[in-house]
């Protein structure tokens, strides 16, 4: 059924169609509308046989989900940013215990300075926690990926984090096609856990594992992700068959076949990138793009096959691994190891900074002209930065950089 609704509502309704049994809710912008929607759906009885639990923190939210999942219930929660970090210990724990929890992450920057707007700093902080991380390009995919996520999580006994760009998707009203309950039921069988708290077959879950077996446990977690790498295309194909549309997969290629320059990105920015590509294609530039859906597991082999055909790669990413550069581009370099194609990093959209078509087009043109730096910072205010750097060179202890830059920009009053 087609509906013009907010992204968060679309996600909430999709979760409802997945027949969740335990939902743990704790508010944090920009994820909040999802759990609000779910609360309504549960109370109205749209979602049946479901425990909706308001908890006191994100740490508790995921912990309740851990308990519920270990006891055999299909469990869901959602969070963002600081919330993800607050539950970080439980994030690793859920993955370590192999519990197929599905969690929506309304992607958002991490403070300080506190910032509620979109980037991918939060999910990247947890990229090695053992969770499968899927990124939605638009609201339709956000909706679809959740349905896929439960099926995938429960098949491989691994939690799945569905990344939905904060505000850009969560708060955007778009037209989405909501599947019917029978369709979802046909795609997503009831949860059958491989390990569960059961009086009839008691086990101890969560043992302490020492040097004699810890490495094996970690390898098995890695192996699980490699399995997921095989399952994602299969499940996506099944999804296409049952729902009649393309969603998920490891990544989406756009006009890459003869592309000399391929742009790579996660999430919603791919929409903008495609528009720029269309423009440049009409200008004769052989450019294409890859929108990565499965960041974890990272499809090294499949990407290598596609990317090795291009002359040059430009990775647009909404995070900055401070002290290193781009995380996604590092991962791409890993996919291309041994090959000669240059991989450029474009750090963009941090803390919700708009990524405009104009700026992207400039960068892509520079790439064609071999003028693009190794790491490019999109639309950075170099004046503010240079003033701060000059000041700090003069007086080492000049206070918080953020405050100073804001002062230079006129955001706050200068001290008398």
């Amino acid at each position, binding site marked *: 059924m087609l509906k013009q609704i907010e992204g968060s509502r679309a996600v909430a309704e999709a979760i409802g169609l997945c027949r969740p049994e335990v939902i743990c809710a704790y508010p944090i912008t920009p994820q909040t509308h999802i759990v609000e929607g779910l609360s309504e759906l549960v109370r109205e009885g749209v979602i049946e046989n479901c425990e909706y639990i308001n908890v006191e923190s994100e740490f508790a939210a995921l912990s309740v989900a851990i308990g519920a999942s270990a006891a055999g219930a299909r469990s869901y929660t959602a969070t963002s940013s600081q919330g993800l970090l607050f539950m970080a210990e439980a994030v690793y724990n859920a993955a370590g215990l*192999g519990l197929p929890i599905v969690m929506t992450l309304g992607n958002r920057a991490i403070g300080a300075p506190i910032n509620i707007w979109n980037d991918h700093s939060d999910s990247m902080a947890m990229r090695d926690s053992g969770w499968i991380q899927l990124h939605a390009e638009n609201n339709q995919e956000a909706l679809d990926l959740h349905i896929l996520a439960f099926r995938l999580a429960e098949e491989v006994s691994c939690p799945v984090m569905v990344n939905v760009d904060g505000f850009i998707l969560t708060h955007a009203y778009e037209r989405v096609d909501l599947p019917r309950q029978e369709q979802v039921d046909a795609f997503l069988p009831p949860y059958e856990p491989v390990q569960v708290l059961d009086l009839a077959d008691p086990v101890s879950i969560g043992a302490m594992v020492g040097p004699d077996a*810890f490495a094996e446990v970690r390898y098995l977690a890695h192996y699980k992700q490699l399995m997921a790498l095989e399952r994602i295309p299969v499940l996506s194909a099944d999804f296409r068959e049952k729902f009649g549309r393309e969603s998920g997969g490891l990544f989406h290629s756009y006009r890459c076949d003869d592309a000399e320059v391929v742009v790579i990105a996660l999430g919603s920015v791919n929409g903008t990138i495609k528009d720029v590509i269309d423009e440049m294609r009409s200008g004769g530039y052989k450019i294409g793009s890859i929108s990565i859906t499965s960041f974890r597991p990272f499809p090294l082999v499949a990407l290598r096959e596609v990317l090795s055909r291009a002359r040059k790669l430009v990775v647009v990413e909404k995070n900055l691994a401070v002290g290193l550069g781009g995380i996604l581009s590092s991962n791409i370099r890993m996919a291309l190891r041994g090959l000669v194609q240059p991989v450029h990093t474009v750090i963009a959209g941090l803390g919700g900074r708009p990524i405009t078509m104009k700026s992207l087009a400039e960068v892509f043109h520079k790439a064609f002209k071999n003028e693009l730096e190794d790491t490019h910072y999109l639309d950075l205010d170099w004046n503010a930065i240079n003033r701060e750097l000059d000041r700090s060179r003069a007086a080492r202890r000049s206070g918080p950089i953020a405050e100073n830059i804001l002062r230079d920009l006129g955001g706050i009053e200068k001290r008398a």
Partner: protein
Amino acid sequence: MEHPFAITLDVGSSLANRTGSWRTSRPVYVKHLPPCNDTCPAGENIQAWLFRAEEGNYHLAWQEIMKNNPLPAIMGRACYHTCESVCNRARVDETVGIHAVERFLGDMAIANGWTVTIDKPVSGKKVLVVGSGPAGLSAAYHLTRLGHKAIIHEAAAQTGGLMRYGIPTYRLPRRVLDAEIARIEAMGVEVRLNRRVEDLGAAMAEEGADAVFLASGAQNTRLVDFPTDGSVQVRDAISLLREIEDKRAQLDIGKRVAVYGGGNVAIDAARSAIRLGAKEVIIVYRRTRATMPAHDFEVVEALEEGIELRVLRTIERIENGGLVLEERVLTDTNRSNPTGRFEYLEKVDTVVMALGQLVDNNSFLKGVPGLEFVGDGVKVDNLLRSGREGVWAGGDLIPAERNLTLAVGHGKLAARQIDAYLRGETYVHPPRGKIAKFEKLNSWYYADAPKTIQPALSLIRRQSGFEEVLGNLDESNALYEARRCMSCGNCFECDNCYGACPDNAIIKVGPGQGFEFKYDYCKGCGLCVTECPCGAIDMVPETI
């Protein structure tokens, strides 16, 4: 179900981890000797029979007593129960009234006609027992249970020895005495009354006896010479008590009676005198009350009955119908020394001499070859063997503390010796365990009396003092009393070790079968030892 590797484990799998290897010392279940048992002259296993009594199994409890003592109804009344003076319970609240429970069981046995079994097949051997007092009866009883024929020669017209002729009826009703002796006779012990042994060899030959136990007692009164003008009647306590037994109450002893001596016989004589109608009875004793050999509770009862104590006095002479007494002083070493100061006790009708008894060794004993004497008593070794092969001696006849319960113990020991002798074996005394001291107990687990129950408790304690006028304990009291036993040094299956082990390293075998350690898992923490209420677990170092 297949579980994820390592993080999910099958329940109870830690049983594979044998933590017993951590141990440096191990707990072991032990049986220590309760102080009551240790001190009982008759060798009763008091803790064991209280264990049965406390569960209401009175018949088993009585059988347990009967293993060592054939006269529980008598002992429960007339024994001076040294067991109670060492009872560890006194450190918690008050001593357990052991004698009261014993008497309760003894009376129940009489009322129900309970009997014991003969433990061994008939041996065909015969044993002559001289004397039917507590030692003789005890020996005859045990010999019978051991399969031998016991024949008692008794000089008097009735059985019982000093139990009949020495213990006043108010302490020991004769129906009780008769019943317990009758039970022994019914087992097959033959008693020949009015049979004073004159020639032991002839008596043995007559009975065809293979061995002899001498238990003819000490009936002669120790005499002290002091001048008398004949104005006061002088009697000895033993003959007085005997005469009371024969003539009952028809004896005139006068209105004002002095008893000379401070032992239990003196008290018996004094209290009997009251019962014979004396208005005033004065006990004259050369030391202090604290040093009187008589048991304190007897003295207390005597005082309650109005008897007067005149301590630190000796009788100097009798004159003008009264006694001249000399004051004495006690030295640091408890000697009673004269002072040269005198006083006069006027209008005394009778003086009863109760200064102790002597063995009449001017009797047939003289003619027994090999028999030797120490003082007036027959000399025996620590196994009661006399100088003559095949002849044992016990009770008041030998130099030892003279009391009823010890005599019963002698009878048992002699019987076991004689049994071994007749079978050509050597009797080995079972080893004695370590004493179960109060410090080894964890008395926390025993309920102590709340203040409301304390008065009732004291009452019971007094009632159990065996005044026949006060009667027996009823069943609930007896049970109550038996359950106060702390079972010192002996497991009573309270499950504390089983419950307190943090490692589940104890197997509860089942009722009556106690517990076992699972040394595969016991880490040797010792919690079971500390929490055992009765100190029945010891820690011993591991030998590696």
